[in-house]
């Protein structure tokens, strides 16, 4: 057991949450981060779905990594990811139909998420299954965390609510407060994301020096 949670493995899991965050540092998966963060709920669901699928596709690719012909490795990775995503969406549709309707377009988006391909290519192809699994979970959560952050800001200021519950009271609207329509637009997500990356770098890169 101690080997399972060795120092290296811990780093593999913790690094993507902060210093090697897929969105803030690797700058992967930006497109889906812009598309699904106009409200908090889809951001959470998308974050969880990506976490699960990154982890399992990492494990599968890691298991067969020595047999994959290098010239078609990207295609093999894509086939594994697409098969996994399709199976997950079919299972959701059969057992939790509401959630599958909620996810609808995002499930397809997961296949094209750069984080998956990036992690498969950069990590799972040359590491054992268990560290690959941790790497997948870590990167998925690192991605989910940023999505939730941006989703929170956009829903709160764009609609005055969180998870659909109205937070800004009616009286504030009567007093002249207006929801910021810009926040619901994808362009604002890009600006917010830029600010998050900026703050993160300004803080952590100074420490390094």
């Amino acid at each position, binding site marked *: 057991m101690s080997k399972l949670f060795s120092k290296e493995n811990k780093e593999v899991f913790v690094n993507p949450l902060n210093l090697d965050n897929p969105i803030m540092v690797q700058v992967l998966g930006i497109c889906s981060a812009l*598309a*699904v963060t*106009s*409200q908090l709920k*889809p951001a959470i669901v998308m974050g969880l779905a990506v976490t699960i699928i990154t982890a399992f596709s990492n494990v599968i690719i890691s298991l067969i990594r*020595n*047999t*994959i*012909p*290098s*010239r*078609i490795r990207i*295609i*093999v990775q894509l*086939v*594994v990811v697409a*098969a996994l995503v*399709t*199976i997950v969406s*079919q*299972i959701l*549709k*059969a*057992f939790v*139909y509401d959630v599958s*309707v909620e996810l*609808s*377009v995002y499930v*397809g988006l997961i296949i094209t998420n750069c984080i998956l391909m990036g992690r498969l290519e950069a990590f799972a192809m040359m590491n054992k299954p268990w560290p690959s699994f941790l790497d997948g979970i870590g990167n998925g959560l690192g991605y989910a965390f940023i999505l939730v952050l941006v989703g929170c800001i956009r829903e709160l200021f*764009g609609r005055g609510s969180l998870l659909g519950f109205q937070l800004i009271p009616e009286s504030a609207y009567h007093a002249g407060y207006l929801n910021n*329509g810009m926040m*619901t*637009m994808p362009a604002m997500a890009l600006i917010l994301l830029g600010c998050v990356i900026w703050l993160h770098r300004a803080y952590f890169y100074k420490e390094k020096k």
Partner: protein
Amino acid sequence: MAEVKKKGLNTNSNGYTLIYSTIIVVVVAFLLAFVFKALKPLQDINVALDKKKQLLYALNIRDISDAEAAQKYKDVVLADEIIDTKGNVVDKGEQGGEKAGFVLNSADYKAGRLALFVCKVDGQTKYIVPVYGMGLWGPINGFIALDADKNTVYGAYFNHEGETAGLGAEIKDNVKWQNLFKGKKVFAEGTRKVALSVVKKVDDPSTQVDAVTGATLTSNGVSDMLIEGLSKYLVFLTSK
């Protein structure tokens, strides 16, 4: 042993690459086919129940559990008729029906086999007309419930497959917006041309609904869908 043997293979040779890709494709194909077949019956039940709920939403019957929805559908829907564009009844359907108008899809709709749900809510006759169209990213559809005068909108529900959450998806998620349709008229005063539509600037509040902010293209899709769809039912809607 197998592992050692695999390592001995030249994984970069053409033959190995071809065989490898063939095997992986066949394995994945069988796996997907199996999953799809095994889960199909369960999915069909879910899809049918979801459609019933959508029909009930159009009748402003919301916030009901799955079990209640199935029963309520049986109570409320008197017949799931199939009619043609000339207003003739092709199939009478049945009470709480799931076989006639209920199973029609957008292909039947384009071919002129139109579903018409005759319902009774609180003793009053209502008609539900399904409409199909295109949003920004994919197909959208809707159910428009009309009063017995075949002109006044009683309720509306819209659904989509891939509109953007928070923008185009509002046509489905935003109940307040759907409620804007209540009381609108299909036809403008004294005309026989479908006027019910979604516009950015409302000129005629009796037939026009304000578009969804930030979702102009999806809103246009809804508008086209309403005009095109309800026009198919023109003969039925204008016969008294």
